[in-house]
């Protein structure tokens, strides 16, 4: 049924070890959960359900999942835009504090790039104002403001920067707008960028350019990035590690080269198999919609849609009962190829 799913690969831990540094990772989610209270008598929605994820310095991590998987909520929680209901965000070896002052300081060092560059720029602000905004928030009006803005614009690929200063967002193309947003983040010299679907609303030709820019930021400025996306091709293009999220939990994590070429979780395998260019002969199209975070199934959260369980292969491996009743252990998110699946562990 699934062409490359049967051969369970060896553990991909060796490649990941290179990225493991002695000191604590730059940005960490430790046992993080974010629950939105249910309204009008509905059950609470568990958008993020006990996630461990490290973003090391100089590393690009892709967080992949469908809409409703909680990937955007996880990103927002990591930025301090949502408060976790459990666990904590750690940055630079310290837990994130949620006082006004601490958050302000944090947000100088961790920057956000949103999906829709058109919406993330105030239509009444010029390019100059949009890029200088972060500087003004944190430092007031600086004498070298103009040089910093020009440098950031130039670095983001808008040259000559002076010609962009007075433009309004509506005078720019989609790719240029996203560069302005990135320049606005760069001007604060952050350590980490969290990008939520940075290229999803851009044209195919521009997409590559923006991704190349993110890659260049990592290579030249040692900037870490957490890229939230539903696009596995993007992960292959730029990421070092990839975390696959399903219903609020990371179900598979590891080096891009191992996870995407030898996926072990049936969900990752299915995602890969439906890509148009997939080597899998028969795509595993999961039926139905991604389920509701307000009603997370018991046992393994993927079991109602799991093709392995359905085809009886989990039965043969002797784990079918555990799939239905036992929640696989939470992954620690540090390094190495990890998978939260009874079947994958049983057959390896």
């Amino acid at each position, binding site marked *: 049924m699934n062409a490359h799913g049967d051969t369970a690969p060896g553990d991909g831990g060796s490649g990941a070890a290179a990225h493991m540094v002695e000191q604590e990772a730059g940005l960490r989610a430790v046992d993080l959960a974010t629950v939105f209270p249910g309204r009008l008598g509905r059950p609470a929605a568990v958008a993020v359900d006990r996630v461990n994820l490290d973003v090391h310095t100089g590393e690009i991590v892709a967080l992949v999942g469908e809409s409703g998987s909680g990937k955007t909520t996880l990103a927002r929680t990591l930025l301090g*835009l949502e408060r976790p209901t459990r666990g904590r965000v750690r940055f630079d070896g310290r837990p994130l504090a949620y006082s006004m002052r601490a958050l302000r300081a944090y*947000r100088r060092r961790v920057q956000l790039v949103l999906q829709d560059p058109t919406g*993330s*720029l105030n239509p009444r602000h010029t390019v*100059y104002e949009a890029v200088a905004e972060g500087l003004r928030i944190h430092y007031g009006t600086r004498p070298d403001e103009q040089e910093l803005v020009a440098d950031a614009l130039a670095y983001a690929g808008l040259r000559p920067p002076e010609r962009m200063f*007075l433009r309004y967002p509506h005078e720019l193309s989609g790719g240029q707008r996203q560069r302005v947003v990135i320049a606005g983040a760069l001007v604060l010299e952050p350590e980490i960028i969290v990008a939520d679907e940075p290229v999803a609303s851009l044209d195919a030709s521009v997409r590559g350019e923006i991704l190349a820019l993110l890659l260049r930021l990592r290579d030249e400025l040692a900037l870490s990035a957490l890229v939230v996306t539903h696009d596995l091709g993007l992960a292959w293009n730029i990421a070092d590690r990839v975390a696959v999220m399903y219903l609020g939990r990371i179900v598979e994590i590891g080096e891009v080269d191992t996870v995407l070429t030898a996926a072990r979780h049936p969900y990752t395998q299915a995602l890969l198999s439906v890509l148009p260019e997939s080597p899998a002969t028969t795509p595993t199209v999961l039926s139905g919609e991604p389920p509701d975070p307000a009603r997370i199934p018991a046992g393994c959260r993927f079991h109602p849609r799991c093709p392995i369980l359905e085809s009886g292969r989990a039965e043969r491996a002797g784990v079918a009962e555990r799939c239905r009743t036992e929640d696989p252990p939470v992954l620690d998110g540090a390094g190495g190829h990890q998978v939260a699946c009874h079947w994958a562990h049983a057959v390896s």
Partner: protein
Amino acid sequence: MSRDLPARRPRALAWQRRRRALAEFWVEFRANRAGVVGLGALLAIGLIALGAPLLIDTDELSVTRATGPILDPPSLSYPLGTDDAGRSVLDLVIWGARVSLTVGFLATLVSVTVGSLVGIVAGHFGGWVANVLMRVTDWFIVVPMLVLAIALAAVLSRSTLTIVIAIGLTAWPPTARVVRAQTLAVEARPYIERARALGAGHVHIMTRHVLPNVMPLVLAQTTLLVASAIIAESTLAFLGLGDPTVVSWGGIIQDARGAGAVSAGLWWYVLPPGIAIAAVALSFTLCGRALERVLNPRLRER
């Protein structure tokens, strides 16, 4: 695009941008003929009101010192006739514009400031803050303006300031509602999220992002409010709640009623201030509609 920018400082850049935006705005506004007519009329009325002390001897406006004949129909020396104290009605109407416009603008300033503040704060913070503020707004909406004004006039002195306060305190709720709705729409935009992630505080978001996006609406609202404030002032003056020592349009009509002008058919005494009120209110409304059209792209397309 601009040429010699690198040498300029940010402040100069901002000014250049503002000038350009203003020029664009003027081009759009000029295309609206009704708006241009309204603006022209307002400028003319404003100039006359400002220049009134040069045109009119204040002695002529005094009930005791006026020299004209009493209740004389329009003639060459008194183009709009005279009142029961022998004052020129034309002079009275011109002088009345000063009070009417002043009250109109001041009351509008008060109500727009209060309305925008309440609207933006309620829209930005939401939760119980919004709940409290909007209940207060609702309360003010149902308070009848005239009753409040009469009560205020009884407590405070009968002065122009009392009228300004009375109008200002009752006219802000619609502005607050409109501004709050617009604030909610702006707050949902991703650039607010981006600003927040950049580390922006409440004040920054409200002044840098919400206010500029709410301003056009407020501006259009302002011009429309001035018209109703002037009418409200006239009403209060007509009811005798105004300062009896100052000449205002509403006051003139009240005097005319007192002099029996309506039953006696003294049209030159009643009509001119009435027409003046209507003309100013209409001009402001025309301007306001034109502004709305220019500043709100959704209306512009129609």
